[in-house]
């Protein structure tokens, strides 16, 4: 996976350099924006792929059953797994932030990297949850991808649901809006995390930073507890 991450950084750097040759103005902003979006997407993919495949391999090799037959609580198994996945997420976030420092001020890159770390931690927790609950690689990967895309687009869906085209809204419009709002309550605020504008324009305010930091802690606890509930109820 290290090699994939290095190649991804190289490709992102190369694409950013190539496209900046075409641009006439805002070269640094273009390079930063392209690299940032490519590295963020790669980070999400690598973390989820790592978490899901490693857990699936352990399940297939009966390592989970072996571990649980030892005098150790299931919560310890989960904490071990999530700690490993979190370490990978943090390492990737740190590694992917470094090349961006070429184009943007270090303080802004550090905040962006911190936000990417939080985003990848949430992705790691969701991936572990899906891998333990669904046990199959494709199902877990599809569920994680679906969750990530939904979390990133739920605010846009809320706006669309709240703006029906007809003046007279019917009860179905209200029901649809309530459903979308209810789903939004369960989702993390990923659309306000790791924004490229923090690198190209101004960084987030302290209020925004505390918002996504709180969101990360709360969501890690929520998904962690949900995973452990599922793990304790599983009959191996």
């Amino acid at each position, binding site marked *: 996976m290290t090699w994939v991450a290095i190649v991804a950084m190289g490709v992102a750097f190369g694409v950013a350099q190539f496209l900046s040759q075409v641009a006439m103005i805002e070269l640094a902003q273009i390079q930063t924006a392209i690299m940032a979006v490519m590295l963020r997407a790669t980070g999400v993919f690598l973390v989820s792929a790592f978490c899901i495949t490693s857990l699936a391999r352990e399940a297939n090799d009966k390592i989970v059953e072996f571990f649980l037959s030892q005098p150790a609580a299931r919560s310890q198994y989960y904490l071990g797994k999530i700690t490993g996945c979190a370490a990978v997420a943090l390492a990737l976030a740190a590694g992917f932030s470094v090349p961006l420092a070429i184009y943007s001020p270090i303080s802004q890159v550090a905040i962006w990297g911190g936000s990417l770390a939080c985003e990848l931690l949430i992705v790691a927790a969701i991936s572990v949850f899906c891998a333990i609950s669904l046990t199959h690689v494709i199902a877990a990967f599809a569920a994680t991808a679906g969750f990530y895309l939904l979390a990133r687009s739920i605010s846009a869906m809320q706006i669309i649901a*709240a*703006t029906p*085209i007809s003046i007279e809204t019917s009860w179905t419009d209200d029901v649809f809006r309530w459903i979308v709002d209810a789903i939004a*309550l369960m989702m993390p*605020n990923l659309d306000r995390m790791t924004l490229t504008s923090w690198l190209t324009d101004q960084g987030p305010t302290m209020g925004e930073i505390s918002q996504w930091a709180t969101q990360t802690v709360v969501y890690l606890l*929520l998904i962690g507890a*949900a995973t*452990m509930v599922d793990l*304790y*109820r599983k009959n191996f």
Partner: protein
Amino acid sequence: MAGSLERPFHVVPKGIAIIFGLAFAVQIWVRATNPLLVPKAVDLPAPPGSNALAVASFGDPIPTAKLLMLYLQAFDYQSGDRTPFQALDYGKLQAWLTQILRLDPNGQYPLMAASRLYADVPNEAKKRQMLEFVYQEFFRDPGRRWPWLAHAAAVAKHGLKDLPLARKYAAAIQQNATGEDVPLWAKQMEIFILEDMNELETARIMIGGYIEKGLIKSPGELRTMELRLKEIESRIKKGK
């Protein structure tokens, strides 16, 4: 329960259940207290270029057009209150609508929005700009786009009180929307506007021409038009 896939809930340690409940409640609170950032009219940027949209569509422009229309609609729209639309930059708005129509020429949404939403603002210049946009775009596909020009004619007549403009739109429908599925009322809008303009002689000639050429197929519609013709002729006589 041997063989069951799941064990009962009471095997879950209480601490974990409590953390789950608390985290769930805090998550709801965090999201509920985080206001949704609705884009304001002044934030509407210029639309991407045709090439950029073509690349972003990955060879399938219809979904992109549909999503862009929903994105555009979300700008400064408040349900039941259309006044905020007038804060939009109508130059940029028209550019967006044009790009969306180029992506999905068969889509009706952009022209519906132009004639019914964006032309429904208390700003005459902006209203006229949207009506003119609908008029220009109508000629690209009259058979499909006539309903929006018909609405534009109604807005010109009742909203702007500009009967010559309404007649121009109605005449465009009458001359270009010649399909079988275009209803008679739409084709004959011009006659009614001419009556309102007191140009009774022209209206009389038009109705007479319709009847003479056998363009009116339905007996009921024919009877209605004959009555209308008689009424106009009697008004002309009274006028003389």
